[in-house]
């Protein structure tokens, strides 16, 4: 992990206007370093997915700024945002959302083809990535021929296709059993270490969150606690409301 900030978030606010105003994210300030392995936790409806979607340029903030690699991406047009998502961001969701008609290999090739890479380059890169997620024997299997954990690994490989600055995961083990979840987290951890890949993961599973370097707790759209890894445990920030999760995290 370097000292350089890859993401700088300032006063980020999102208000949903569906008849009544709902403050989903409330003035969040956050810096994320290159190569960081970060978890965002919180009860449902706390705004963690909204925050993640804004960081992932899938959603636009009501106010505030997000700087990705020193570029203010909040001002980008829809097409520019699509390009940023393709080149700088990788996504893994709760459900893998692989294209059912495409093989594992072809699914991983898509972000590369969108980026304008030719098929041979894309195929070689996809093979390399599927090898990294230990699926080199399933290259030509379609999603319905793979287990949930295998599909999620394909999704991870797809997220890494264009060597993005940040990979975003939203409850990415939500559909998997504990054993498979652990394997996926170990895989992400390994990729984080080997490739210095930045990960931002939203989860409500504290056990998973504990495997990261930093845990942010979000309640009502605000960061109410920050825990930083030190050795095997975590140091918490001065003010910290861990709510119902209090006591489950090993602290130094």
């Amino acid at each position: 992990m370097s000292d350089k900030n890859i993401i700088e978030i300032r006063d980020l606010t999102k208000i949903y206007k569906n008849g009544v105003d709902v403050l989903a994210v409330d003035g969040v300030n956050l810096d994320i370093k290159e190569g960081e392995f970060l978890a965002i936790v919180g009860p449902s409806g706390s705004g963690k997915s909204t925050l993640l979607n804004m960081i992932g340029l899938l959603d636009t903030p009501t106010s505030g700024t997000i700087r990705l690699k020193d570029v203010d991406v909040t001002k980008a047009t829809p097409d520019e945002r699509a390009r940023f998502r393709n080149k700088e961001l990788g996504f893994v969701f709760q459900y893998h959302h692989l294209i059912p008609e495409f093989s594992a290999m072809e699914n991983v090739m898509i972000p590369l083809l969108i980026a304008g890479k030719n098929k041979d380059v894309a195929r070689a890169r996809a093979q390399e990535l599927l090898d990294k997620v230990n699926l080199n024997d399933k290259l030509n299997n379609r999603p319905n021929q793979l287990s949930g954990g295998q599909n999620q690994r394909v999704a991870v490989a797809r997220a890494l296709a264009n060597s993005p600055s940040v990979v975003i995961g939203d409850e990415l083990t939500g559909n998997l059993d504990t054993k498979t979840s652990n394997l996926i987290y170990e895989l992400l951890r390994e990729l984080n270490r080997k490739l210095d890949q930045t990960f931002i993961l939203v989860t409500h599973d504290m056990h998973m969150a504990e495997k990261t370097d930093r845990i942010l707790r979000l309640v009502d759209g605000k960061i109410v606690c920050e825990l930083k890894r030190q050795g095997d445990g975590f140091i918490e920030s001065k003010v910290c409301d861990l709510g119902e999760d209090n006591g489950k995290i090993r602290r130094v």
Partner: protein
Amino acid sequence: MFELEVAKRHITSNRRGTAFTVLTVAVAVGVIIMSLGLTEGTKNQIIENTVEKNPHIVLGPKQNEGYIHLYRNIERLLSSYPGAIAVSPRLVVQGAARHKDKVEGIELVGLESDKEERLMQVQGNLLAGNFSELKFKKKYAILGVKLAEKLDARPGNDVYIYFRNNSAKVSVSGLIEKGTAKDSSLVYISLKTAQNLVGEGDVVSEIGVRMEDYTEAPVLARDLEPTTKYNVESWQEFNREISRFIGTQNRINVIFYLLIFLIAGFVVANTTIMIVRRKTKEIGMLMAIGATRSSIMEIFILESLLLGLPAGLLGILVGIGFAQAIASYPIDMSSAASGVTMLMLDLRPEFIIYALIFALLLNISSAVYPAYLASRLDPVEAIGNE
């Protein structure tokens, strides 16, 4: 070009949706091909049965003149036109005929049988006798078959024909059946005999012209009238009803095709919307991994476009098949057009091109709206992770 790859996979994986779209477009194209072929065939048959039974152009006397005097010059002028394949001067007058105690009103046509044969192929309509004999036998006459019946006259009988105060005795040498009302009034005699009976000298009352291509006749007629000062009419003018009928039919057909386009378009659009609905999460994911809105739109338009060609080709086969099946059944159309007893099929090669263009346009235009809907999806809502 990942859009094309995704579109191709959508088509091959969604067999039912693909089949539904292809069949809808094929049926629409088939109906249009069938309608085009049958309309064209029937139109041609009506034209043949009416237009081809008359000269394509008839040149009549100048205004305030009863007859054409120096008709040989005009005849030469008309013959010199490229596309004019037959020119026949005729002296047509209304008179009467008597056989024994029976008298009937007649349309007496004096003609030069060799020229008239080239113009109207009269011999083919003759039930008895030889048309070319009129050229040499001044006292021969060919009677409409119904007129002969009314006069109770048979070939070989002598018949008296009258014009104003003049009369002539002619011998029935043949009978003609044209299949029109003229069968009960027509009398063909040689031009010389008719001129003698009329008593106006070497004159005719009209000159008939046959063109290589009858559609050129109206143009030539419009060109001839001011230069010759004669009254010139093409089949369009003296068959005004028919050309109006054909024009109306063409307009009705256009409306009919538009309706087919709309109906099929809605069905295809609906199928595509269903596909977009089912693929919502996938579209959201494609957007998340960087597909632009225009790429998403391109995927669904390409998908529909790729189906256009096979659907069009299938439709052409379906249409030809149905049209041939319909055309092989005799349908009595004689009330609508004389002599039309079957629906005729005339599939011109350009209809195939029209049908393919129709299929492609149909597929593109019915995909635009669903594709637009897909491209405007909000990725967060589409993925629906929460």
